[in-house]
């Protein structure tokens, strides 16, 4: 379970997160939509303390931290509760696919090398990269690299996996393979927070959709509610802009 209370973050006096409150149940898949610059990335980064929030409370699993008083040790502990998949993959360039996945297990979780290897091969098989174990990231396509990124997160068996626009750096024809891997693990009951612009993916996979704008969560609801009956004008305008007018017909028409 994740619980955020009053998360605030400013950069150079401009407030990027204006007190975010958010509760996520175990096994829930939450997607975050919103225009560029609305604070989606910052919110994810505050969740695992890649960015230190200016105020508020972060709880992941049993670990609860008051961000204003957080010590380095607390930040590390809470960071170990989560894993992250980055927009630009951020694989370790000097390590092979297998080593990329094993690294966190061996170094941060102190898993024995043999066990780490076994577990890593298992998750790499799950993301369809069993035949690339000893390749370097530079030898892989973007889609394959991102699947390594997902395997690296998955291997840690975290409370939650944070995805920051996992497909937006990919060529269009590679988006599908990555989304289908994410869908597969979503079905396995892993808690996920996904920032994405892939609307049909969000609609299909989410238990809940959040719409963020200007550093606040403007609206949240089930995919059906957000995509077909948004309450807020801002949400409606955003959805229209991003998908064209015809893509999401009003609910009534669809039923007919």
């Amino acid at each position, binding site marked *: 379970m994740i619980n955020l209370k009053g998360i605030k973050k400013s950069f150079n006096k401009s407030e990027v997160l204006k007190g975010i409150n958010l509760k996520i149940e175990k096994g829930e898949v939450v997607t975050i939509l919103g225009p560029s610059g609305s604070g989606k990335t910052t919110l994810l980064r505050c969740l695992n303390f*890649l960015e230190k929030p200016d105020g508020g409370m972060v709880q992941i699993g049993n670990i609860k931290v008051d961000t204003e008083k957080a010590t380095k040790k607390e930040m590390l502990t809470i960071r170990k509760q*989560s894993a*992250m998949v*980055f927009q630009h993959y*951020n694989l370790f360039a*000097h390590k092979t696919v297998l080593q990329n996945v094993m690294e966190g297990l061996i*170094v941060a979780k102190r898993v024995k090398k043999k066990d780490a290897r076994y577990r890593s091969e298992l998750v790499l098989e799950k993301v369809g990269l069993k035949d690339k174990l000893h*390749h370097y990231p530079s*030898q892989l396509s973007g889609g394959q690299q991102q699947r390594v990124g997902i395997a690296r997160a998955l291997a840690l068996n975290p409370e939650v996996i944070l995805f920051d626009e996992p497909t937006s750096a990919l060529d269009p024809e590679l988006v599908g393979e990555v989304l289908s891997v994410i869908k597969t693990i979503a079905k396995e009951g892993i808690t996920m927070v996904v920032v994405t612009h892939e609307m049909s993916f969000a609609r299909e996979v989410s238990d809940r959709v959040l719409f963020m704008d200007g550093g606040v969560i403007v609206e949240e609801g089930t995919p059906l509610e957000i995509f077909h009956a948004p309450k807020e004008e801002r949400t409606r305008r955003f959805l229209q802009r991003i998908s064209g007018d015809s893509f999401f017909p009003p609910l009534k028409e669809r039923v007919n």
Partner: protein
Amino acid sequence: MTIDIPFIWTAFKEIIKSLPITLILTLVPLAIGFLIGLTVALVRIYKTRFLYQAANGYVSFFRGTPIIMHIMVIYYGIPLLIDQVSSKFDLNIQTNKIPIILFVLIALSLAAGAYLSEIIRSGIISVSTGQLEAAYSVGMTKYQAMFRIVLPQALALSIPNFTNLFVGFLHTSSIAFLVSEKELTGAANIVASTNLKFLEAFIAAGIVYWGLTIMVEGISFLLEKKVTSYSRGGVS
């Protein structure tokens, strides 16, 4: 004046006997300088309190002044310092018994440390912050992320710069002959003045330096190819 070509070979055979000194004067400062440079680079990157200003001052001074000056100041300055301390506390240290090479090594190591810290620092900066954040995101500490993810790549990327510095220091070690250290150039000077064949002796010394440089560059090329193979696409 004519040139005595066969004497070049004679001089070569004599001069090359001093190769070990030149190698010591190159390798030892670079090895010690590497440790200094790594420490200083990390202090500057992490902006460690108090040490940060000292590290900046050190790099600025040693890169901002010629190496020959470091050698001279240390060669004349340290004995003076030791003599003063020694007489004050009745330690009875005789500074003229300290081998000259020690002063030269200290001076060259300090200079190498300053240059190497800049090379290592720029190597560290050129590794993407994304990888550092990924390392944090899998739960590594600052120290683990630096030593397991960033530094190996930073050092691999720095090989061409290390090579340049190595060659530079190989040649710089020649100024040790000014304080009568008998390395390659010092040996050439002796051969030249005892036989009054300056041109031949220094040509011979030049050949030794050039040969060494070509060898170093070759080794560096192979090494770089090997350790940065990860960054080239294609099948492994």
